[in-house]
Every structure is written in structure tokens, then in C-alpha cells.
């Protein structure tokens, strides 16, 4: 497709540019964030309060820095009795007379002893080192390093990157951000010469873009990891010095804690999203789709304006949770990792897999009530038997009520839709009471007829019957109303015509009523099937799935996995399977109805 209007090209170019700038900004921002993330690991006891930053003019003023640290330390730790600052080292005396030193070496150790004398108390000389280091013109780090991790004391490493630090951008950044847009522009403006060929070129470029961004992110991670290694090496060097000094001084040897990269390699979801967005935008340009897209929106702007609020709500609170739920289904998301960092958890591809589905579908066992296939069969049987009763009772009642000569028609109709009007959780609870072994009206009725009373919820079959009775009671009015509506819309002339043609009442029923009832009933039945398949309240409140889960539906099973066992991932996988079954059913019925509806037209 040719691009027709220049204005759309400009819009497209601007959009592309904006997206690239966003990716760029994120990449830069991200490198910094990553470094910050690495060097500010949180431990149980953080001495982040000790961080002090220096203004540009005071860059080398260690004195100021230390004073600030001391102030902070004092304000946060009232146990500190005295703080000494010698050269660029800090000494702190606790009330328990623990002396805390910095960058301890032989001289400092001696100085510490001095200090100890002054305080007239015993000194343990090594809780942690505070050490400041300047590296190059661009970065400046304050490193607080815990030398000993006693019980009850935990320290932290904190390397602060000075504001304004620039992480150098490599050549492949430049490729993406300068060469690629230029190529894109070229393609856009040369499309009339190249014709269809430019689409192929465009696709090649997209592949290139993906590879570049991918490599770029990987490169960036390697880069940060390399930074980390060098810092770590520096830290260990210091520690080694210190430990050696310690040993020379005859103090007990302290093990340096293991330093680990405090983040996992993960793919930046946002960059990928943005890249994919960019790719789509470019595709739009090249195929002319975008132009059409905007023209369509403008042309039908009123319609889109009308549906926008509703669709926005539905997408945000129905589709988004649905998609998110599906994501959960592929993870082992459960009580132990619930409440952590969600974005981190769900952006880590390692957490995804098909384990849930495999575990659900693997074993086929119809004797085990908790087995998936047993529950599926039960759910299908449940749905079919309910629908048979719903539709037959509903249609028969509709036919009866459709007789205009019937006296008390309105009264009957009002009474008959009563079950629909009553909140169904109340209905379910009432019916549970009705099936109560001792007080229930159903057993009372059985006794009246001379039967023995039944303990309904101890046998799978009777339990099923109790559920079925409840749901039939609950569901037939809907079918009745739908059928009644359809019946009333059938013109009388059709019956008169068929009577003139000499057909009997029965023939008229089959040839006029049924075909005209059908268009209204089919959607109602499909809807009813889905509702019954997922009829949570009745099962949950009447039989509670009992005995031993024999009358669970797939949906109540899923609910129990989610909210009784807190296996969210497993439950979500269950729900995905339910959805797949219903989707398959929906597609199947829509094909059937399409195939057969022609017969009546």
C-alpha cells in the first residue's frame, strides 16, 4: 500500500522518534539504576543513615563528609558516647565500649588503643570499616563495609555513585539511535520507487532492531557485572590488608563475608515492550495501515468516543486481569512468594513453565475425586443435566403461560420468576437447609410418603441430586422468560396460515413454534451452559463439594486451590483449562448453529 498523505508520514516519524528517545532514556537511566541497585544492597541492619553526599565545591573535603556522617550516626544511635575523627578515619565508642574503627591498619589500631585508654574501657576493634575512595574524575564512592557479621549485627555495603555520573554509551547504542532512524526515513521517502520491495527491507530492519536491542541489553549487563567485579576485587584487597593487620596484632581472625551480585540477570520488560511498540509503528508506516488507522478513527470518532469509556473499563478490569491471570497460570505463584516484588517476579522468564498443566493433566484416574478428569466429567454431567431440566421446564411453562385465555397468568408468572429474583447465595443456603437430614423439608416430604429419610450429603449421588435440585429451581425461570418472549413475538398469522394449510396443532408446534423459538433459545442455552459450568455458589454453599470432593466442579476446585491452599499458580492453570474447555465449546456451538440455522431460512 502506498502512503498517500505527507502529514501522516510526519506523524509516523515523530512517533517513531519519540519511541526511540524513550528507549534511549530508559537504557541510560537503567544503567545507572542497575549500578545503584548493585551497590546499595539492603541488609537487616542498614547504615544507610551514614551516607553523606558532598556538594560539587566540597568534593575533596573529607572532613565535612565525616562530620556529617558522625552527626547522622549520633542522631540515629544514642549508644554512641564519643566519636573521634583521626586523619580520615572515624572512631566510635559505644556505651558497651565497643570501639568501631575505620580502615584499620597498624597505626590506626594503635590510635584506637589510645582512644581506648582515654575511655578507660575494653575495646573490641573491628565491627566495621568505613572507607572512602575516589576513582577517576567521574565517579566517587563511599563504601561502608561490614567486616564482621556477628549475631545481632549486620552491616551493609553501600557504594554511592555521585550525582551526574555518566555511564558511557557504546557503539551499538549509536547504531540504534542514529543510523536506524535515518534508514527508516530513507525507506519512507523512497517507497514510491521501491514499491513492495521496501516491505521486505523493513522487515529485515525490524529483525536487526530486535537483535540490536537484545545485544545491547546483554552487553549492558555484562558491563555492570564487570564493574561489580572490579569493585569487589577492590573491597577484598582492603579486607585482606585489614585481616593481615589483624592477624599481626594477634586478634582473632574474622572471615570476610561473601560478596554477591545483589541482582538477578533479568530482561527489561519495558524496553522490550517499547521495542515491540516501535516495531508495530514502523510496520504501520510501511504498510499504510497507520494512515488508514488514523483516518478510520477520525471518520468514526463519534462511535469510538461513545464506546471508549465502557471499553476502557472492560479492558482495564476484565481483560487485563484475565491476561495477568493467565500469566500467573504459567508460574508457581503461591503463598510463599505472594506479596514480594510482583514486577520482578513476573518479568523473570525463569519463573514460567508448563509444570502446572503437566501436573493437572498427567494422571487420569476416575476413582480419585480430586482428579482433574473426574471433576471434568462431573462438571459436564452436571451442566448437561441442568440444561435439560432448565430448558424443558422453562419451555413447557412458557407454552402454558403463553395462552392468553389463561386466568391468573400474571400471578403465576410472578410466582414462577421468584427463584430468579432471590439472591442465589441465599437460595443455595436455603436449599442446604431444605436438604438437612433432620430438619429438612425434603426428608420431611419423603417421610410423609413413607420413605426413609436420606442423609443427602454423605453419598456422591444424593449430594449431586441435592445440588441439581437447587440449581434447577434456580435456573428455569430464565429459560422460561426467554422462551415466553420469543413465543410472544411469533405472529398469530403464522398459526392461522398453518391451520389453513391443514396442519395439526402438533405440526404447527414443530413447524412454526420450534423454529421461531430457536433463535432466542440457542443463545440462552449457550449462555446457560457457561453459567452452569461455572455455577460456583450452588456447589460451594449446598454440598460444599462433598462428600470428599465428589461433587466439586472445576471452578470450585480452582477456588479451593487458590483460597484454601493458596496455590495461585496452580489454581490459575486450572482456570485456564476451564476457559479453554468453554472456548472450545463456544467455537463448536457457533459452528453448529451456523451450519444448521440455514435450514430454517
Amino acid at each position, binding site marked *: 500500500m502506498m502512503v498517500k498523505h505527507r502529514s501522516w508520514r510526519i506523524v509516523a516519524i515523530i512517533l517513531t522518534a519519540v519511541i526511540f528517545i524513550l528507549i534511549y532514556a530508559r537504557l541510560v537511566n537503567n544503567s545507572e539504576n542497575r549500578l545503584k541497585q548493585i551497590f546499595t544492597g539492603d541488609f537487616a541492619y542498614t547504615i544507610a543513615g551514614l551516607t553523606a553526599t558532598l556538594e560539587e565545591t566540597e568534593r575533596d573535603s573529607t572532613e565535612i563528609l565525616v562530620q556529617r556522617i558522625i552527626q547522622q550516626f549520633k542522631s540515629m544511635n544514642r549508644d554512641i558516647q564519643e566519636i573521634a575523627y583521626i586523619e580520615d578515619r572515624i572512631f566510635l565508642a559505644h556505651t558497651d565500649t565497643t570501639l568501631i574503627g575505620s580502615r584499620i591498619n597498624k597505626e590506626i589500631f594503635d590510635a584506637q588503643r589510645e582512644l581506648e585508654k582515654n575511655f578507660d574501657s575494653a575495646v573490641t576493634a573491628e565491627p566495621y570499616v568505613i572507607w572512602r575512595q575516589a576513582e577517576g574524575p567521574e565517579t566517587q564512592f563511599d563504601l561502608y563495609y561490614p567486616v564482621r557479621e556477628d549475631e545481632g549485627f549486620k552491616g551493609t555495603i553501600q557504594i554511592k555513585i555521585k550525582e551526574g555520573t555518566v555511564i558511557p554509551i557504546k557503539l551499538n547504542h549509536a547504531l540504534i539511535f542514529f543510523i536506524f532512524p535515518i534508514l527508516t526515513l530513507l525507506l519512507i521517502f523512497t517507497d514510491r520507487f521501491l514499491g513492495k520491495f521496501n516491505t521486505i527491507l523493513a522487515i529485515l530492519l525490524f529483525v536487526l532492531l530486535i537483535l540490536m536491542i537484545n545485544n545491547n541489553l546483554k552487553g549492558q549487563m555484562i558491563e555492570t557485572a564487570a564493574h561489580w567485579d572490579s569493585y569487589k576485587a577492590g573491597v577484598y584487597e582492603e579486607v585482606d590488608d585489614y585481616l593481615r593487620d589483624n592477624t599481626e596484632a594477634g586478634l582473632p581472625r574474622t572471615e570476610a563475608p561473601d560478596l554477591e551480585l545483589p541482582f538477578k540477570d533479568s530482561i527489561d520488560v519495558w524496553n522490550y515492550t517499547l521495542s515491540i511498540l516501535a516495531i508495530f509503528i514502523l510496520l504501520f508506516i510501511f504498510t499504510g495501515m497507520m494512515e488508514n488507522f488514523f483516518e478510520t478513527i477520525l471518520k468514526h470518532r463519534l462511535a469510538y468516543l461513545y464506546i471508549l469509556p465502557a471499553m476502557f473499563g472492560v479492558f482495564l478490569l476484565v481483560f487485563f486481569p484475565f491476561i495477568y491471570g493467565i500469566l500467573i497460570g504459567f508460574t508457581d505463584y503461591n503463598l510463599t512468594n505472594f506479596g514480594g516484588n510482583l514486577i520482578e517476579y513476573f518479568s523473570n522468564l525463569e519463573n514460567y513453565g508448563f509444570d502446572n498443566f503437566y501436573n493437572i493433566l498427567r494422571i487420569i484416574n476416575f476413582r480419585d475425586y480430586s482428579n482433574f478428569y473426574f471433576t471434568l466429567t462431573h462438571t459436564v454431567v452436571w451442566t448437561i443435566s441442568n440444561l435439560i431440566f432448565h430448558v424443558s421446564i422453562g419451555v413447557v411453562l412458557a407454552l402454558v403461560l403463553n395462552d392468553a385465555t389463561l386466568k391468573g397468568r400474571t400471578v403465576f408468572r410472578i410466582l414462577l420468576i421468584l427463584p430468579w429474583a432471590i*439472591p442465589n447465595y441465599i437460595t443455595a443456603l436455603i436449599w442446604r437447609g431444605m436438604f438437612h437430614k433432620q430438619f429438612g423439608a425434603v426428608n420431611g416430604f419423603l417421610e410423609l410418603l413413607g420413605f426413609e429419610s436420606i442423609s443427602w450429603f454423605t453419598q456422591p449421588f444424593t449430594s449431586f441430586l441435592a445440588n441439581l435440585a437447587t440449581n434447577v429451581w434456580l435456573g428455569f425461570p430464565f429459560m422460561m422468560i426467554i422462551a415466553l418472549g420469543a413465543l410472544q413475538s411469533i405472529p398469530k398469522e403464522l398459526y392461522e396460515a398453518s391451520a389453513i394449510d391443514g396442519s395439526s396443532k402438533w405440526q404447527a408446534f414443530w413447524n412454526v413454534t420450534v423454529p421461531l423459538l430457536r433463535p432466542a433459545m440457542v443463545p440462552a442455552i449457550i449462555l446457560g451452559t457457561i453459567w452452569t459450568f461455572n455455577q460456583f455458589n450452588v456447589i460451594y454453599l449446598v454440598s460444599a463439594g462433598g462428600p470428599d470432593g465428589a461433587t466439586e466442579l472445576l471452578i470450585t476446585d480452582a477456588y479451593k486451590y487458590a483460597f484454601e491452599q493458596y496455590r495461585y499458580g496452580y489454581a490459575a492453570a486450572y482456570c485456564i483449562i476451564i476457559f479453554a474447555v468453554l472456548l472450545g465449546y463456544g467455537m463448536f456451538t457457533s459452528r453448529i448453529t451456523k451450519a444448521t440455522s440455514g435450514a430454517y431460512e
Partner: protein
Amino acid sequence: MRNKKTLTKKILTYLILIIVTGITVYPVLWVLKVAFGGTSLLSTSLSLIPEKISLDNFRIVFTQKPFFIWLRNSLIVSFVTTISSLFLATTAAYAFSRFRFPGQKSGMMALLVTQMFPGVLMIIPQFILISEVLHLYGSLWGLVIIYSTTALPFSIWVLKGYFDTIPISLEESATIDGASKGRIFWQIILPLSKPSIAITGLFSFMSAWNEFILAATFLDNEMKYTLPIGLREMVGEFGAEWGNFAASSLLVAIPVVVMFMLFQKFLISGLTAGGVKG
């Protein structure tokens, strides 16, 4: 001969109706009996008249439980849900019915597909969205937002079907008379669609009034409970307090049933047929 046949048919008809209606009404009357039967234990008697009529159960519900607070919460949630979802649904349904635009069919299809989404699957993400993003955990507004949007697909479908039956000629003549699209919508389509709007409004109201799984997940404070949660809380694992349960369920169900009955004449026409007779 013919008379006799119609007579037997009549008798049969009434017989069916009376039996079915009897079965239909019996549980409701049974609840009435339990509710007014005082706090005594239940009996196996099938009789629907309690041995002594007492209002003890209602008294307990009113005085010992925060029933009126729950009622107020439920009313707030249900009314706001109804109004907001009606507004969103009528506008969207009108567009789907009257405008021809790309995405129309797929939009309707997408709405239909949502009806298949298993609710349990959505609770966790919805919970995260409401509590983490919108910070509405424990607030009634979180429920309102969820209820209004989840009721939308059904409402849009029903309303769209109804709008389809209103002849376009009406709008065309209005356009000739100089009415704008907005005016046509507000002054012609909406008044003609009263039955359907009444029905969808009723369904939105009922879905909010009756819902308890989400409410149980989203509300943690007894003073914020809606009626279903309060009611469930009241009976707990419903063993002993049958009387209280029956009394409160009557109180909860009555408004809905009354409304349903008031609206029921719209049920058939509102759900299916059009408002203007050809």
C-alpha cells in the same frame, strides 16, 4: 367433544402450573416460617405455619448486628454501580447498534468472550489492581469499580439488541428535523428504551447486591461489609443460627424481589423485543 377436550387441557394446564408453582414457592414460604418461628429449633414438620409467631429473630438481627450499616453499604455500592454501568453501557450499546465502524463486530465478540472468563482467575489480578494500583483495598469504591465494569458486557449486549429493534427511520426523521446525534440519543433512543434500561439497571443492581466472593476478598472491616458478607458472617458455617439467617435473608431478598416484581413486566420486552411496535 371439543369442549371436553379443551376442559381436560385446561385442567392439565392448571395442574402443571399449580404443582410447579408450589415447588417454586415452597422454599420461600419455608424461610418465612423459620424467620417468624422464633429462636426455637427447627422441626421436621412440613407445615408452613410456625407454632408460634415471634419477631425474636428480627429483633436480634436489628439490635445485635450492625445490620443497618451493612444495608447502607450495600445500597451505596449497588446504586453507584447501577448508575455508572448504565451510563457506560447505554452509550457503548448505542454506538454498537447505530454506527458502522471497524472493530464493531470484534468489539461485541470480545464482550461476549468476557462472559466465559472464569471469575476465580480474575480475583487475584483484580485484587492487585485495586489494592496496589488504585489503593482502594477495604473501600467500597473498589467494589463499585469492579462491579460496574464486570456488569458491562452483559448490559451492552442486552441494550444493543434492544436498540437494534428501534426503527432507524425515527432517527432519520429526527436528523431531518435538525437533531444532533447526541440529542437523538438522549431524547429519542433512551426514552424509547425504558424497558431495556430498566432491566439492565436491575441486573446491574442485583449483581452488586448479591455478590459476595469479591466483597469477601476486598473488604476487611466489619463496618465496611456489604449485606452478603455480613449475612455470611452472621451464619458462619451456618449451623445453629437458622432463625437469624432466615430473618436477615428475608430482609436482604425483599428489596430485590420487590424491584424484580416491579420490573418484571419489562422482563420479556426489555430482554428481547423492541419498544416500538411496527
